[in-house]
């Protein structure tokens, strides 16, 4: 547990805004406080800003899921779609899914199918691990690179 003094932080924040600074760091024997404000004029917002705002891109297929996955820190655990297509979680309608959450899988084990061009492509486990999350629903369309599931 790190103790800190909210009033000092607030005071620093006020000075930051008042002076137009973007960062203040204060350090002494007790410890240090650093307050930062994203500069209002950096290029990054300009980049975003210069895009026409009316016609925002509409991602197909689960923007929410993709956003959740994007928030997952250990991206090396994510299995991404290698192709565009439709997801099948079981070999045929009604049958048991290839994998379920909590299940351990071995390298090369089929995780799900993606149908593209009337062909069912087996998506196999790139490594052994445990399925901790399935990020797509059966029948959902997926883009290239879209997160499918998490294998830890």
């Amino acid at each position, binding site marked *: 547990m790190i103790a800190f003094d909210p009033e000092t932080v607030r005071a620093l924040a006020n000075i930051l805004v008042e002076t137009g600074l973007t960062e203040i760091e204060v350090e002494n024997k007790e410890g240090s406080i650093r307050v930062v404000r994203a500069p209002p004029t950096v290029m990054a917002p300009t980049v975003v800003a*210069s895009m026409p705002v009316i016609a925002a*891109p509409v991602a*197909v*297929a689960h923007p929410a899921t993709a956003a959740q996955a994007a928030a997952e820190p250990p991206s090396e655990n994510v299995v991404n779609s290698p192709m565009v297509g439709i997801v099948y979680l079981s070999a045929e309608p009604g049958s048991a899914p290839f994998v379920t959450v909590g299940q351990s899988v071995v390298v090369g084990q089929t995780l799900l199918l993606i149908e593209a061009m009337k062909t069912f492509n087996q998506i196999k486990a790139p490594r052994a691990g445990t399925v901790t999350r399935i990020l797509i629903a059966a029948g959902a*369309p997926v*883009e*290239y690179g879209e997160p499918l599931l998490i294998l830890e």
Partner: protein
Amino acid sequence: MLFQKILIANRGEIALRIQRACRELGIPTVAVHSTADATAMHVRLADESVCIGPPAARDSYLNMAAILSAATITGADAVHPGYGFLSENASFAEMVEAHGLTFIGPSSAHIRMMGDKIAAKTAMASLGVPLVPGSPGAVADLDEARAVSARIQYPVLIKAAAGGGGRGMRVAGSEDKLEEAWSQARTEARAAFGNDAVYIEKYLDRPRHIEMQVLADSHGGVVHFGERDCSLQRRHQKVLEEAGSPALDAAARDALGETVTAALMKLGYRNAGTLEFLYQDGQFAFIEMNTRLQVEHPVTEMVCGVDLVREQIRIAAGQRLGYTQADVSFVGHAIECRINAEDPVTFVPDPGRVTAFHAPGGLGVRVDSALYAGYVVPPYYDSLIAKLIVHAPTRAEAIARMRRSLAEFAVLGIKTTLPLHQRIIEDPSFQAGDYTIHWLEHFMAAQAAE
């Protein structure tokens, strides 16, 4: 509604161009893109987008399965291929149709026919389109060579029938040079190909590249939209195009247009197409046909007041042109400069972040570009980043307008070929319209020597 949803199987400025036409027609669009293009303008402005693969074009923009899957999962009912990539791939057109979708372009049979350059020439000759004058086949002996050459007039080119790569090829500038050229070509042909059969063609030493834009509907309507002069080329890449050609008058345009439309009518061609010709001494010689929209289509749009992409979509939906040749008029003059992300002297590509982008505006100025400030030009694709097109009542005014527009155009952070265009348009020969397909290489060599 012409279509429920159109998938645009391309990227960059042409994807944006097609997107604009779709939006004006009220048709929703699907952009496909590689991972390198996730923030590209064509993606951001589309109604939907699908990532179809990694940066390499063969895995994304050339990935037919991924593109068709994207069409399927988004419910698109038509595919516009743009130019380049899969636009002249007959198999792709077939696959699109096989999936019950409409390919916005000609039939796969015509794409295939025109993709084979020899078959294309044979077909066009049979349809009455002029080729380079020459012997109908191999020439038996020197006497026949003399007769053919006298008919087609010197200079002539003696070419190995089995030839290629410039071997077994000799120019005879006049009759007294014919015998020597004849023996040399045969000797070289025998040595190179084990076959000394040669044929003779008129040698074009200073041709212009002139092409004719055509639209054909599926009800027999065929109309041409005049010519474009694309003689300014570097390594067979067009650099600057004009409509009309400084070398043609209305009578020459009409005559060529009649030949071309008659041929495509007989062929039963459909959608947009362009016939490319070499033009010298008042004679046209067919080179090839492009069965797609072309990069330089805007100059035609400017002088004819037609939206060629809109027309492509309407034709693909089975609509009639709704106008005849007599309804097409040519107003003023248009010039297009292709702006590439390249060093303007060495032509080394220069991808990277565009720190500032400010397009010229005002009367008679059109910019087709998918750039924006902050965009990173990826290193994986063509270096074309913008097309600057101007239109004015006369060619001289169009050049003046291009001059002031080039001066207003700011693309910072990367090198562009804007300075090259600024030099070209100040050249007296260019201003006089006096150039051939070799002009630009000579111009650049002269500039380099200075």
